[in-house]
């Protein structure tokens, strides 16, 4: 047994002390796995190397482990501790790959470990690790579906993630685990729409198809008005149609619906065919009828791609072209068949051409078909003849032309073509049975030469059906058939029996004997169908004493006028499946296919998608404190930064900011400002745009430090220190029994839960800054303050509130435009306006102009560094972990320590975790009291400039306290 010998060798190599030998052995083993040969005996030897330092060796061991762990569950458990250790590794890549392998090991016993690892990874600082955890969710779910509830919690959490890296994977997990939990999407809907362009292409496909389903449950149909023009059956069910007609309200598209359509449109230009198809189906299922056609060009472009891509795209176009001819008609030439196309591509193109045929283009199409009939590919030629038949029935103008063309084909040299033509002509003649005796006669002449059974059967049927039109020929054909009956195919025999019966009824004088003869032959046929048929016919037509009432009606039964067959597209009912799906492609319901729901008659509550106002939790964050003294206290900090101001148009910037350079930002904001100028309103305009690098170079001195806020009553002791120190604290906390919130240890004795929310700035006085003095403003004065709440327009912006007031009597009242409303300011009146500024985490001032009807005032807003921060919830462990991480990833960390005099401090230590508003960079701050009189203040963040500024300000504040 050579393979056993080889296994022994490999085992020896694996157990050697040389890395290179081990690696060589693993490479051979992977070769074995790739060939599908079993290498499971080597498991113990391989698993020993799981902790190898050599990364390639380790990876190959992983490959092996994932492949065989299921077979060798007990041994596989040996490796688990290695992964658990790696999950804590400072290198995110190692953490991620450990999670990948751990979750790929399909051993039920480790489900709890996997669950724990997934939960931890879902809160990891690295988006790559979080992405991996989203993948792990699906793996765990397939291993143990009982974990569903817990996994949904993790999915819910990950859905809130703002990283484009995570979005695709978590939606995939959502689709796999809980596709029906549409409620989890509400809050993330707009975010997903806005992120979509920047998500990696595979994620885009998944998100788009999920959002298609979502939109079908949340918005009303945009197709109502168009309905009356199109008398064709509506896409959806009839019941819905009736409902819509009763309420004739004008349709207004939900802005969220529009948002989805708008944000997916650019993806039609994607190089990834799956993305283009996904967008196309989204438009097909969601867009108003007149907008769907924008996808046409992109779909046609896909036909240039690989053969397999063409196949799928053509299938979808075939379905679309049945309902919406107009969409593809201008591109009809793209569907012309090329001789190099594969047969299934040719057939699909033929299908589409037939669907698109109308009075105007039929002659061109028929000309094309004429070429195809001559094709070497006989199956295709036959399909073309069928297509000609379909065109003939669908377009009455060309019925005769087609019929004539088909008759011409009867003299074709190729038998398959002739046979197919006969079959199609038979169908066509049924639609207009009059005046076609000639054709029937012609076919009777051909009968001797036609050997294809289906064609022979068709001719026989025609003879029988129209025997009165060919009274002389029909009996003769029957005579010939009687001679060859026994040698014919079954289908021909059946039709012979039919013909005999019909002739017996119409012309019994000539054919009585012949019929008897054929019926006798049929009686002893080997095929039971033919025997049955013979017996039935005999009873029906031949009068004898036993025959009942039926024989009286024999003539009416056999010679009843028969409805013409309807020649329909094979793709007619494919539209019950969502386009672009596997089910659509196969025309059968695939496992796991999600039915596309009908539009709701009444749209569900739209406000569920309002994220910013209703529930600030996405942006809000909870601050977390640990201290030896009980001091639960939440802080928001306020932060600010210079640079970009963008009034309310958040979408525009958000979609741009991911990718675009400063150039494009500038353009978008400029166009915005133009619009505003026209309104002659006050406006804020962005002035500067500098590359980020320059920003830090010229950071101005921070003048004032944020306002000091009074804290809660119930920890008064703390307050004197705290509000001096954490000027940014502004929030109250309510003790709550909410287990989801972080736990606080107070005095080391009791545990209780707290929840903090960033709420409005109702607590404590906010420091207000002067923006425009009433003297310089010619009576108009403006002040601003930072409300320290999440910005409504975009999470990366700092909210700023402006107060305008008119102090003097001035003849021209001024207009103030806040978000989108115009207001006139009466003398003595004042108005408050909110705006958001994205300072990009720097304290540089945002300069802009206030425009009144006659004046322009240049003003600037400069934030204190604290205004640029938002609190962030984390547990103590997380805090330490993140802190450790920021310390480890050497280049990205700036760490500042200082000693400051805090002699009046009560607490021994406290921690504060926050994120910068714009880039969501983590800022960790900890204060530790040392034994000596000083305290150690540590700030960990990637933003080194910010850290130093924060440090300086805090020192100052502490010194004052």
């Amino acid at each position, binding site marked *: 047994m050579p393979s056993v010998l080889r296994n022994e060798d490999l085992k020896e190599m694996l157990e050697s002390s040389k890395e*290179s030998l081990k690696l060589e052995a693993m490479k051979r083993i992977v070769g074995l796995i790739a060939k599908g040969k079993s290498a499971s005996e080597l498991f113990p030897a391989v698993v020993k190397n799981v902790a190898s330092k050599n990364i390639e060796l380790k*990876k190959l061991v992983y490959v092996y482990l994932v492949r065989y762990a299921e077979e060798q569950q007990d041994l596989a458990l040996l490796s688990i501790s290695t992964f658990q250790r790696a999950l804590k590794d400072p290198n995110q890549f190692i953490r*991620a790959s450990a999670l990948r392998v751990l979750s790929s090991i399909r051993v039920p016993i480790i489900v709890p470990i996997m669950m724990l690892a997934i939960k931890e990874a879902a809160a990891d600082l690295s988006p790559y690790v979080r992405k991996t955890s989203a993948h792990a969710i699906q793996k765990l779910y397939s291993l143990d579906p009982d974990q569903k509830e817990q996994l949904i919690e993790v999915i819910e959490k990950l859905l809130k993630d703002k990283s484009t890296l995570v979005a695709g994977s978590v939606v995939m997990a959502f689709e796999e685990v809980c596709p029906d939990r549409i409620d989890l999407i509400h809050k993330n809907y707009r975010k997903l729409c806005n992120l979509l362009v920047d998500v*990696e*292409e595979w994620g885009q496909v998944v998100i788009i198809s999920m959002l298609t389903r979502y939109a079908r449950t949340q918005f009303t149909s945009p197709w109502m008005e168009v309905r009356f023009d199109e008398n064709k059956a509506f896409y959806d069910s009839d019941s819905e149609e009736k409902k819509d007609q009763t309420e004739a309200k004008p349709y207004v598209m939900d802005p969220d619906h529009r948002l989805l359509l708008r944000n997916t449109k650019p993806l039609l230009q994607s190089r990834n065919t799956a993305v283009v198809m996904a967008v196309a189906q989204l438009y097909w299922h969601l867009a108003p009828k007149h907008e769907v056609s924008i996808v046409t060009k992109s779909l046609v472009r896909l036909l240039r791609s690989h053969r397999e891509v063409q196949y799928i795209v053509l299938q979808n176009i075939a379905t679309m072209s049945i309902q919406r001819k107009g969409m593809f008609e201008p591109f009809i030439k793209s569907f012309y068949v090329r001789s190099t196309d594969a047969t299934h591509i040719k057939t699909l193109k033929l299908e589409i051409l037939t669907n698109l045929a109308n009075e105007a283009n039929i002659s061109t199409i028929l000309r094309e078909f004429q070429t195809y009939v001559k094709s070497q590919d006989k199956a295709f030629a036959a399909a073309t003849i069928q297509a000609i038949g379909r065109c003939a029935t669908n377009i009455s103008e060309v019925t005769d032309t087609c019929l004539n063309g088909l008759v011409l084909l009867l003299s074709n040299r190729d038998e398959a073509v002739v046979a197919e033509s006969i079959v199609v002509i038979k169908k066509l003649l049924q639609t207009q049975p009059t005046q076609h005796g000639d054709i029937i006669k012609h076919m009777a002449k051909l009968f001797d030469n036609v050997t294809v059974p289906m064609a022979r059967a068709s001719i026989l049927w025609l003879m029988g059906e129209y025997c009165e039109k060919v009274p002389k020929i029909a009996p003769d054909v029957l005579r010939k058939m009687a001679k060859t009956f026994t040698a014919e195919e079954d289908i021909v025999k059946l039709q012979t029996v039919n013909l005999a019966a019909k002739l017996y009824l119409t012309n019994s004088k000539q054919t009585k004997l012949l019929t008897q003869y054929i019926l006798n032959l049929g009686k002893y046929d080997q095929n039971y169908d033919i025997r049955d048929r013979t017996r039935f016919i005999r009873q029906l037509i031949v009068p004898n004493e036993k025959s009942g009432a039926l024989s009286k009606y024999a003539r009416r039964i056999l010679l009843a006028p028969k409805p013409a067959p309807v020649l329909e597209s094979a793709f007619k009912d494919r539209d019950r499946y969502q386009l672009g799906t596997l089910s659509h492609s196969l025309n059968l319901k695939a496992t796991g296919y999600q039915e596309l729901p009908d539009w709701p008659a009444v749209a569900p509550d739209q406000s569920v998608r309002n994220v910013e106002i209703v529930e600030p939790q996405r942006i809000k964050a909870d601050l977390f404190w640990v201290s030896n003294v009980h001091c639960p206290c939440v802080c928001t900090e306020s932060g600010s930064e210079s640079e970009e101001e963008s009034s309310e148009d958040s979408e525009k910037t958000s979609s741009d900011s991911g990718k675009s350079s400063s150039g494009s930002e500038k*353009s978008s904001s400029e166009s915005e400002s133009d619009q505003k100028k026209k309104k002659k309103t006050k406006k804020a305009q962005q002035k500067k745009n500098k590359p980020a690098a320059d920003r830090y170079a010229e950071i101005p001195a921070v003048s004032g430090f944020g306002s000091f806020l009074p804290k809660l009553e119930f920890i008064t002791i703390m307050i004197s220190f705290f509000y001096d120190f954490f000027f940014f604290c502004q929030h109250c906390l309510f003790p709550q029994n909410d287990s989801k919130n972080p736990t606080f240890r107070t005095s080391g004795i009791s545990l209780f839960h707290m929840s903090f929310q960033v709420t409005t700035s109702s607590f404590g006085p906010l420091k207000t800054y002067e923006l425009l003095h009433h003297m310089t403003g010619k009576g108009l004065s403006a002040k601003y303050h930072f409300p320290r709440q999440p910005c409504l327009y975009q999470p990366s912006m700092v909210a700023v509130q402006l107060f305008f007031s008119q102090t003097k009597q001035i003849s021209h009242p001024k207009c103030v435009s806040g978000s989108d409303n115009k207001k006139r300011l009466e003398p003595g009146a004042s108005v408050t306006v909110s705006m958001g500024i994205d300072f990009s985490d720097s304290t540089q001032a945002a300069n802009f102009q206030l425009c009144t009807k006659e004046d322009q005032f240049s003003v600037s807003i400069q934030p204190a560094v604290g205004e640029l921060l938002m609190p962030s919830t984390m547990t103590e462990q997380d805090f330490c972990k993140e802190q450790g991480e920021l310390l480890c990833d050497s280049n990205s960390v700036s760490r500042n320590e200082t000693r400051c005099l805090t002699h009046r401090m009560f607490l021994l230590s406290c921690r504060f975790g926050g994120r910068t508003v714009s880039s969501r960079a983590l800022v960790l701050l900890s204060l530790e009291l040392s034994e000596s009189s000083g305290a150690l203040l540590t700030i960990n963040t990637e933003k080194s400039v910010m850290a130093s500024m924060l440090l300086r300000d805090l020192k100052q504040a502490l010194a004052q306290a």
Partner: protein
Amino acid sequence: MIHSLFLINASGDIFLEKHWKSVVSRSVCDYFFEAQERATEPENVPPVIPTPHHYLISVLRHHIYFVAVIQSEVPPLFVIEFLHRVVDTFQDYFGVCTEAAIKDNVVVVYELLEEMLDNGFPLATESNILKELIKPPTILRTMVNTITGSTNVGEQLPTGQLSVVPWRRTGVKYTNNEAYFDVVEEIDAIIDKSGSTITAEIQGVIDACVKLTGMPDLTLSFMNPRLLDDVSFHPCVRFKRWEAERILSFIPPDGNFRLLSYHVSSQNLVAIPVYVKHNITFREGSSQGRFDLTLGPKQTMGKAVESVLVSSQLPRGVLNANLNPSQGTYTFDPVTKLLTWDVGKINPQKLPSLKGTMSLQAGASKPDENPTINIQFKIQQMAISGLKVNRLDMYGEKYKPFKGIKYMTKAGKFQAGLPDKWTLEYIKTELLHKEIRIN
């Protein structure tokens, strides 16, 4: 999503298998083999095949079937696109994607497949990211690795994976900074016997080779961007900027990549660079046929038409051809009946022609097919659609790069000589004759 992958060669052997979830027995491929048997040509195997428990989605490239096993609903294009991406990656790594190359590099293939999919969902498909994770095998590196014991596998998370520009790695350095763009257009056309165009379309691509230090931000503008109304972009291109200003603005990937591909459809006026006059006649009862073919340039803006190759599948009845080319050489394969004529460059003063006789099988009836004529050619320094790059600017870096742009036009599926029009009148008169004869 993707459960397993099987690679099957032309002779029907499964030579590689990879599973991302639990193992699927290779017997599932029997359904594929069945379908393969039913299909007459290798290309005719349907891309999607249902089996009782799985679905097989396959692509055929380089005579290898890549068969993915799917267990539940997934957009089929998703899988097809991914499989093609796998093939492209193999080609990128090994130069060719053949059975031998895959077998020789089975470990790298496995490592790649492991990184490209996690649990059946694509993880890293950008070539820049993959190359940081797994270095392509080269002879030099293999030697160095054997000596030093270092590996081909990266230890760090590729920088692109986390950045907003995942297609570009950081820390790129070149001593010579250069950016080359090739505008390559392929013209597909069908021309009938009388020389009028039935359809003509242009498929264009702009392939780039960018070797620039740091994080350059490029903008490429066109003289006539209106031509590009049907385009698809590399993900690096900013959609918004294109929509608003018709400028391509992008941070390029490092190395070779396809910046965009476009399609100028038959609705636009497409210039046809060459014309063909041909006359092929067979007489009833005679064993001789005449063959006469002339090529000429047309609308080439003064550029030479080069590497012209004419091929035609002559009817089965033709035994041999005795032709006389005015330039170049011709071959006729009596077995496959394929006539090829290597013309070379077209001289507008002296048009190339191929004339002569064909001998037919004795007694055979007159061949009823007009053979189609396929033409290949190249035109340097010209994009047939008229597309022209206006300028290329670079922002974000200080140095001056060397910039180059090249245009080329090639024939794609360029066919001439389809049969005459099927005019309806013709049919009607024919029918009339028939009817008379019947009566």
